[in-house]
């Protein structure tokens, strides 16, 4: 059977730089930072008192009220908002009730890195005593389980195809999109909502602080704390939110006259097995290179065709290694290297949601024929300028027909997820 071509027909986002695609797009191209001082983290013993958390606006509150998920995790609430936005963005309507048959052709794969730590720690645990338990509702399980986002989206929209969560730490969002796209390509679904969602909780972030991988000595300068590609990088700034896209077969999109935002050409997911330099927290170079090459092979795209890379680039020492691996995998150096930037400079590292939110930023750069300024990238790390010409890391928004994007995501557990998106 021939493989279906897969396109993106809708996108929805809840992010530290804005909720909803319109606001997000504006903030993306204006270089807006969503990173703020978070003095409340001091009481938990954090060294890094910074974070990037979406605003809980009226729209989010209305969704919580409609689906009665006020006591559920924000992993769930962000995902509901983003998924329903993507659905409407694609030209569909969100039903007012749960009547009628389920749609066997549409599913949802929405991942998370840390799960419902916010609501389990902040609501379920304190209520878990004989007196408190009385006030716990029957919805505790369904609103805190890792597949709560996918299950609630399924309920809201009546979806009858695969409904799952996937999880691969910081590679989660990208892995969800690749997995969903492959399902459509194989003809097992026509449409899939896919992406990731991550809640903010001091208890999900504290482990990163303990490891000293968070931005050091930048508490006084939140706007410049996340600086991917720069020699100033000292660790990442944790963030939260959700990024979800509607993937659809090209055939179905054409049939209903849908607006096509970009094509998913192919991707690959692999692991370094924590060998050959890889560890729980650091990638293995040969496996990263293999992942990139395999993704290009799956997509039927040659290394020379990539004109822009949306990197993982989390503002850590691994940024240099990522550039090394990219140049080796593509065999492109100096001025020949693709344009590159990282959304994490503006949104921080949204962990399980990162891959989803950043993929959306990639599609918006295709749509607008513009590569965004690589915020906070100067001074560039000297090892990076040895490999890549400065001109490839834009100092301001760059007008450029973005044809082929390579999106990379690397996660704890030595896991890699890379995919190719193309302008149609």
């Amino acid at each position: 059977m021939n493989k279906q071509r897969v396109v993106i027909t809708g996108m929805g986002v809840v992010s530290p730089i804005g909720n909803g695609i319109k606001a997000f797009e504006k903030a993306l191209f204006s270089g807006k930072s969503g990173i703020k001082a978070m003095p409340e983290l001091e009481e938990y013993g954090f060294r890094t008192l910074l974070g990037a958390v979406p605003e809980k606006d009226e729209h989010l509150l209305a969704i919580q009220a409609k689906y009665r998920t006020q006591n559920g995790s924000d992993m769930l609430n962000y995902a509901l908002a983003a998924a329903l936005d993507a659905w409407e963005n694609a030209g569909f309507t969100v039903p007012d009730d749960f009547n009628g048959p389920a749609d066997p052709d549409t599913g949802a794969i929405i991942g998370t890195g840390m799960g419902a730590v916010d609501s389990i720690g902040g609501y379920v645990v304190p209520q878990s005593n004989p007196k408190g338990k009385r006030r716990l509702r029957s919805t505790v399980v369904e609103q805190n389980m890792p597949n709560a986002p996918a299950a609630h989206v399924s309920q809201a929209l009546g979806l009858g195809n695969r409904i799952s969560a996937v999880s691969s730490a910081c590679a989660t969002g990208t892995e969800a999109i690749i997995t969903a796209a492959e399902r459509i390509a194989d003809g097992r679904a026509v449409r899939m909502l896919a992406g990731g969602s991550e809640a903010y909780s001091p208890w999900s972030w504290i482990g990163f602080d303990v490891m000293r991988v968070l931005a050091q000595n930048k508490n006084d300068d939140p706007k410049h704390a996340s600086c991917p590609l720069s020699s100033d990088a000292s660790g990442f700034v944790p963030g939260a939110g959700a990024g979800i896209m509607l993937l659809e077969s090209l055939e179905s999109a054409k049939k209903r006259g849908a607006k096509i935002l970009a094509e998913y050409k192919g991707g690959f997911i692999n692991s370094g097995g924590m060998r050959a330099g890889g560890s729980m927290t650091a990638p293995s170079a040969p496996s990263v290179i293999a992942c990139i090459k395999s993704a290009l092979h799956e997509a039927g795209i040659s290394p020379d065709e990539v004109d822009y890379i949306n990197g993982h680039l989390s503002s850590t020492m691994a940024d240099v290694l990522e550039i090394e691996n990219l140049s080796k995998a593509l065999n492109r150096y100096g001025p020949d290297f693709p344009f590159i930037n990282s959304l994490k400079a503006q949104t921080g590292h949204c962990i399980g949601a990162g891959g989803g939110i950043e993929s959306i930023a990639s599609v918006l750069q295709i749509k607008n024929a513009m590569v965004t300024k690589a915020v906070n990238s100067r001074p560039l790390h000297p090892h990076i300028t040895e490999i890549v010409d400065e001109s490839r890391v834009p100092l301001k928004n760059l007008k450029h027909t973005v044809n082929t994007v390579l999106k990379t995501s690397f996660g704890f557990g030595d896991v890699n997820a890379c995919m190719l998106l193309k302008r149609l």
Partner: protein
Amino acid sequence: MKPSEANIIDILKRYSFEKGVWKQYSPNMSIIGDLKINSARIVDIVLDVEDRFDIEIDDDSLESIVTVQDIVDVIEQKNKPV
């Protein structure tokens, strides 16, 4: 209909997904069997009733609730002056 019964129906309808069952409504209908409300949601209904009527319903009273009338009776009992 007593205001308490009307309030209870209002609460129950929030957990009722089969709208047709209300056409033949009578207070002797069972919540799970006749009104087809998910048994897992009884605890939520009781919490809503407690909040709305400002009473506390102990586990024994909860377990005795089968019909709408049973909820009306429990509320009346809790509101009785000691």
